[in-house]
């Protein structure tokens, strides 16, 4: 009986024309799912929209497999810029020109309405690609950004506004205790709040693989260092010959500074600290500051005992990270028009404002002026300012994942060794490792292209 029941329920819930959207299980995706009914109402005909939410690695595998095998299960894929190179160069997804052609009635002067409203630098970072990825040649947009992310400074307002701490800090440093605008003050504040008698810590830093890299690039790039010698370009640009600057003087100094923060880190277990655990740690109320992903800031506030205790500002220095993801329309989608319409309707300003109120970091600039958004989302200004001054910090070429893993493991080794670490030697070794991995990856790409011909 149970078996029959089990199968009949499956049949009854069966097929109806619709689209499937896959994304990471985070507030950005939840917000779209929560507004599903409003988006559906905009369609001229009834439609079903299913959301599939998974942990990042699982989402990547499922989306990749669907694209590679051409099964067209997922119509819209909410993916990050590390996938951009593979999706574009393997022709897995529609590019924007194709979308404009198919949905011509929604365009004005050959463009969609939202195009002029986007954070341009974010779009170019997460959604543009040049198939011939070396410098030169025409770049074109492949994905429409679904979120404009960054990493910003989150600080504990209760600690910062406590008179005891304000006076003591001034006493010691002769400057006001406020969110730091330069890295030197950042370190002073971190040191100041690391106090075993008060059981407070200056920082909580992320040490898990991938997470450690994302945090480190903030330090590295804002001090003139980085991974590749391609200043003022995009993460997806470059090729196997692009010079690496991992062992440059600037990167070395930035890494030394990064490692010098270790005594002020309050994570119980640094190497397992990821974005989600960092949020939990900040909620405990005894950490002064952290550098946090903007797309988890909503979670920080959502169930916090006292959401008002958190303040937000761009990271110290004068540059911030550009990150985020794009809507990718599967070119084997069985309902490509409906999939594209989903993107269009989601990108309407009214919907974007509502999405931002539910955790999305909107890629539409005007949403950040919405009074309700400004009132209810306390990180609006910090996010906006970060995106305005954002630059490339994250690698997004075909070798990006190999680079991220190599640098993550390198940083973990350095953190573990502490003061005894041979920082320059380790950076140089990582550089060689990246060169070797990069060479193999590009060799493989060439091999596969030849095989296709």
């Amino acid at each position, binding site marked *: 009986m149970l078996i029959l029941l089990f199968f009949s329920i499956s049949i009854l819930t069966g097929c109806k024309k619709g689209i499937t959207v896959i994304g990471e299980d985070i507030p950005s995706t939840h917000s779209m799912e929560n507004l599903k009914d409003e988006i559906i109402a905009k369609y001229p005909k009834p439609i079903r929209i299913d959301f599939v939410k998974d942990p990042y690695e699982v989402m990547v595998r499922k989306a*990749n497999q669907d694209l590679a095998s051409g099964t067209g299960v997922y119509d819209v894929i909410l993916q990050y810029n590390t996938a951009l190179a593979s999706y574009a160069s393997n022709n897995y997804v529609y590019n924007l020109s194709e979308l404009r052609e198919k949905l011509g009635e929604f365009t004005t002067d050959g463009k969609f309405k939202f195009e002029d409203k986007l954070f341009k630098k974010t779009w170019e970072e997460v959604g543009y690609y040049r198939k011939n990825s070396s410098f030169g040649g025409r770049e074109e947009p492949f994905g429409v950004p679904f979120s404009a992310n960054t990493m910003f400074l989150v600080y504990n307002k209760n600690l910062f506004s406590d008179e005891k701490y304000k006076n003591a800090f001034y006493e010691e440093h002769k400057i006001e205790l406020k969110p730091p605008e330069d890295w030197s003050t950042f370190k002073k504040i971190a040191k100041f709040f690391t106090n075993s008698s008060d059981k407070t810590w200056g920082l909580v830093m992320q040490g898990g693989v991938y997470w450690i890299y994302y945090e480190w690039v903030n330090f590295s790039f804002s001090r003139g260092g980085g991974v590749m010698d391609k200043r003022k370009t995009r993460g997806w640009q470059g090729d196997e010959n692009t010079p690496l600057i991992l062992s440059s003087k600037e990167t070395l100094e930035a890494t030394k500074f990064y490692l010098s923060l270790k005594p002020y880190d309050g994570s119980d277990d640094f190497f397992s600290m990821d974005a989600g655990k960092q949020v939990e740690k900040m909620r405990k109320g005894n950490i002064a500051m952290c550098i946090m992903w903007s797309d988890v800031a909503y979670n920080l506030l959502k169930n916090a005992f006292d959401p008002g205790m958190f303040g937000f500002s761009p990271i110290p220095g004068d540059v911030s990270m550009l990150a985020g993801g794009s809507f990718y329309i599967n070119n084997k989608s069985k309902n490509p028009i409906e999939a594209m319409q989903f993107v269009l309707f989601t990108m309407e300003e009214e919907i974007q404002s509502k999405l931002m109120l539910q955790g999305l970091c909107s890629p539409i600039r005007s949403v950040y002026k919405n009074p309700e958004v400004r009132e209810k989302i306390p990180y609006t200004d910090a996010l906006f300012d970060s995106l305005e001054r954002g630059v490339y910090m994250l690698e997004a070429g075909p070798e990006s994942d190999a680079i991220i893993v190599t640098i993550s493991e390198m940083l973990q080794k350095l953190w573990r060794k502490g003061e005894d670490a041979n920082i320059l030697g380790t950076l140089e070794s990582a550089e060689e490792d990246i060169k070797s991995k990069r060479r193999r990856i590009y060799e493989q790409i060439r091999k596969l292209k030849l095989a296709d011909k």
Partner: protein
Amino acid sequence: MSNLSFRQNVALWPILLILFLQLLYVLPIFGSFSDLSLFNFIEDNGHNSLLRTILFTIITTFFQIAFGFFGALLLYRIKSTKIQIFFVLFLLPALIGNVTIASLLNKMPWFPSWLESRPFLGTLTVLGLIQLWQYGFLFLYLFWFRLQFIDEKFENFLKSNNFSFSERVSHLFWPQSKNLGVLLAIFGVIFNFYEQSKISIFLKSSGALNTEFISHWISKIYQQNQGVNASFAAKTVLGYSGILIIPTFVLSFIFILTILRGGNFVTKKVSIFNFNFLEKTPKFLIYIFLSLSILSIIIPLTFTLKNLFPFYQASLKIYFENILYILPTSLFITFFVILSGIILRLNFPRLLQRFSVQSMPLFLILFIFRMIPPTGLSFCGLELHRLFLGKLSMIIFWFISQAILIFPFLIIFVLFIHFEVKENEIKFLQQLRTKFNEIIGLLFRRRFFLHYIFLFLFAWAFTWNEDTVTEVLFFKFNSVNILLKTKNMGKGLSMNESSSLILPNLIITVLILILWGFLTNKYISRGKDNR
């Protein structure tokens, strides 16, 4: 098969069907070997992860079996059924599954500072202790359970003839437990070699930190290669997964040989390996051992539960959906396995009466499928189920994938418990031309009723906790286990939501164990009274 009778050939059909389905399932692995230049194990630094995994597996499996057997010998001396009922708690860590354990570890209120730097020995020791906690107690319970069915008359005969405890171990307890030891060795090798979730969620795997085991390394290879394209990345994972069958197979074989041959060596050299201390241990020390064992299960759970209660929010709807899919699946699989096991036992009365050189190949072949890394199995699932994209066919594919994943464990357990059925009993009833259903009643149903219930418990726990294939299939019901995994990692982490998933999970498991405890207690006492 040409030397087998018609009935024996037919009896093999259930196993052959499953083997056929398993072979189909892993076809993508064979396809990945078309270009061997893709595989650079040393250059990709797989050797460090592999060596670490092998070392961990050998040591942990050894301790799990040793702890299980000797712990059972100690607890064998407790005859009070009122106390024995508490032994069911030993099953709790294994039944709650890897993801729940990892989630609970994540919620520990403190973290040992010496572990933060991930020292080699310290890290492997902690991971080994977690594995021992999860499976060592399960093994202890199974060994103890096995000892409950020892012929008391024979034991009394040995005692009255002044056989020392060591001699009774070598002549009675070990021979009766040896087959179980082999079975648990295979389980232990597979569980330990492919340990993945607990490390990923709790300590986070990393090639720089002694926490990257071979399963994690394969996932890393995929991640690094996906920039080329998805097919290429999947091919490398599938290829490496195929290659890794070899070390797992070899390790299992070594353990089996060690237990079969080594156990004999130990029992022959009783004077060197003296177990009399187990009999001489004062009863109060045994009760202390029991109390500490139970407390080691309850205290971490209670301590962590205390931290979960403030966050609990009801989510019972998800549980109902899970039960709707998992209950019929596990019931059907259990029934299929029991029937297959009975048919095989009846048609191979001599071959399947013990683990032996002749029967070992059959057992190992059944397990080869499970010697493929979970990541490889999940990619096979991904590759294949694009052929099953209609909603109904996706559900069928999920069902079949669960069946073939768990079949090796269940069938080998069933074949093992059916060793109790003697060849002459079968031949006697066959000569009398007894009907099939009567044979089942006489030889199997009453004798193994409790074992079959346990089998169902195992099938249920396995399907509930399965996170390898379920999470990657395009069809997905809201698996509690997968949701729990999501809520414990990365940007999706949520203390509230994971707490609301763990608590009902634990409550259901404890209720099941209480029922199981009363059932076993009643059955064992009745069995002893009848003897």
